[in-house]
């Protein structure tokens, strides 16, 4: 079962490595991890996409909470969060494939951010599922390089994380 967890943590020296080594040391899986400062001073927010059964997910959230620098752990249940991800993709685009790439970009509301006679570089944002879908279509055309941010997530509704 895939799960998305948000971790609000003190922006202290080594906090990212504490979280990362907790996952590796206890054999938990990380599919993606993003981290950046938030609107609150000294606070970072990580979004971690992980995988495991119910017991493992319970241990993951408890173990994260146990880290001294972790302020809050939010385990998003299905549908309770909005997730977005960005991908930068360099694809081969020559002759007839140039038009095909442009069509795909248009359908997915992505952007061309760099052009050469032989390639396009594309910026795509959306839910991780949408990113998967555009990549699926671009792959046969010649995918030269791919970089994904990993998902970021925020809870639905009017309430902030503090309630």
């Amino acid at each position: 079962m895939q799960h998305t967890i948000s971790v609000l943590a003190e922006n202290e020296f080594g906090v990212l490595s504490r979280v990362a080594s907790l996952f590796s040391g206890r054999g938990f899986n990380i599919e993606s991890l993003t981290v950046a400062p938030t609107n609150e001073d000294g606070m970072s927010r990580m979004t971690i996409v992980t995988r495991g059964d119910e017991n493992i997910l319970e241990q993951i959230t408890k173990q994260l909470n146990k880290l001294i620098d972790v302020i809050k752990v939010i385990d998003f249940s299905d549908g309770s969060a909005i997730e977005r991800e960005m991908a930068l993709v360099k694809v081969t685009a020559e002759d007839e494939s140039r038009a095909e790439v442009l069509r795909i970009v248009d359908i997915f509301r992505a952007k061309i951010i760099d052009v050469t006679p032989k390639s396009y570089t594309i910026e795509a944002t959306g839910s991780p599922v949408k990113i998967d879908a555009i990549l699926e279509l671009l792959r046969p055309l010649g995918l030269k390089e791919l970089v994904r941010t990993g998902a970021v997530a925020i809870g639905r509704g009017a309430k902030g994380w503090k309630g």
Partner: protein
Amino acid sequence: MKMNGARIMLECLKKEGVDTVFGYPGGTVINIYDELFNVKEIRHILPRHEQAGTHAADGYARATGRVGVAIATSGPGATNTVTGIATAYMDSIPMVIITGQVPTALIGNDAFQEVDIIGITRSCTKHSFLVRDVNDIATIMKKAFYIARSGRPGPVLVDLPKDVQIAQAEFSYPESVEIRSYKPNLVGHPRQVEKAVAMLLDSRRPVMYVGGGVGLGNAAEELTALARNLEVPVTTTLMGLGSFPESDPNSLGMLGMHGAYCANMAMTHSDLIVAIGARFDDRVTGKIATFAPHARIIHIDVDPTSIKKNVRVDLPIVGDVKDVLSKMIKQVDKHKDKVAVFKEGLAAWHADVAGWKDKHPISYKQSSTIIKPQYVIQKLRELSDDDAIIATDVGQHQMWTAQFFQFNRPRTLLSSGGLGTMGYGLPAAMGAQAAFPDRQVIAICGDGGVQMNIQEMATLVQNRLPVKIVILNNNFLGMVRQWQELFFDKRYSQTCMELPIDYIKLADAYGAKGFLATKPDEVEKVIRQGFAEKGPVIMEFKVAREEKVLPMVPAGASLNEMVLNA
């Protein structure tokens, strides 16, 4: 008043009431040692190895309940503390370890004696701090001590670069500490407590399963009161020994791999297990799939991650065990009628337990020609003070101590339960003796483990720490040999020590006394001689070489599949 960072650190220790530290000087802590010259309130004990210093701080902490403090220099000094830190972490021992670090400007440059000790110890500390500014030392030290001793205790490392020790700042120690991201839940939920008592009074075959958390949480008195009031059988883990008097008729002794038959049978047949400050370690549960098949489980622990980590739990109570047990006692008092009925209903259960106790008590075959190690342990109990503190290494002698030395008081057994660290016993005893100069402190060791920190003999003699070292010498790494005998066709690969050591001469070389017993009728005399000495002593007992620790649950077997005689 302005002072340098080194002095500020020492002033922080004074504010925390630290009276003893175990430390080893070096290039990056030389400023601390220079300041220590002027600080008379802190006793500094110089071990002969940083690992031993850390174990000594751990032994000090286990025996006293206060935070143990160790100091080491950067690089190899810091890495030598790692085993000591991991030992303390696995058993939740409150400690603060202060390591020197190369100057801030050199960090990351592979400077002389530089290691990333924060990185190395990340997974075996409760928390760690790298101090980058002299003005932060006081706050960080306050936090370090608070984190080490609160909630589920543990070791905290403070890495102090040399330039920060030299820099000057005003010293003021914070009165209180507030960490927004760290608020351990100490108060047990009243409704959970009510439910727990209701479940307990509804049960017919209850067992209390007690771990190290009860002793660490200073809740032995509450536990004993509750168990005695309800007449519920109590079994403890290795770490829990002493938290419930083994002299009590309701004590089942230790459970698990080398636990008592009656304890393991009681767990297997129980309908309600109340786990208190215990974590269902694999050495306790045996095969998880068949563990306690009939029991509902109440789990009381200050650390939420311990709950439901290894076994299913029917009723979790997160909180300080002392708080939860006090509340349970009060709740039980509200139901006097129910309690009377409950106790009457326990008759059949008590009969079952008594039957198991009679059927296979912890025992051994005495010999008139060869010293049996179990006999030495029994004699030690008989001849030692009631409040004697026992430290052990890890292996057969540790299990025999757990089985045959009846522990009746909390904080009288110092043993590396979680990590299983050989070489722990001697230095841990040293730390306990430093805390209690007038109490009898006995290090029970095998001939394997004792040699891992034998250099601490020098520290004992130099500091007049009269630790009584007992060596059960079978010239084998006995526990591994036992496994090789039982599970590897007696192929004793690298477990025979071969070279006999003259421990009497060794004691003499360090300026201590040594006594040797080779026959059973010499055991008592040697113990009496050893105990009568004012200084540190080695008592060596040449014991039956291939004696086994029994009973035994083979690794991966169920608790009720005990090897009783092999």
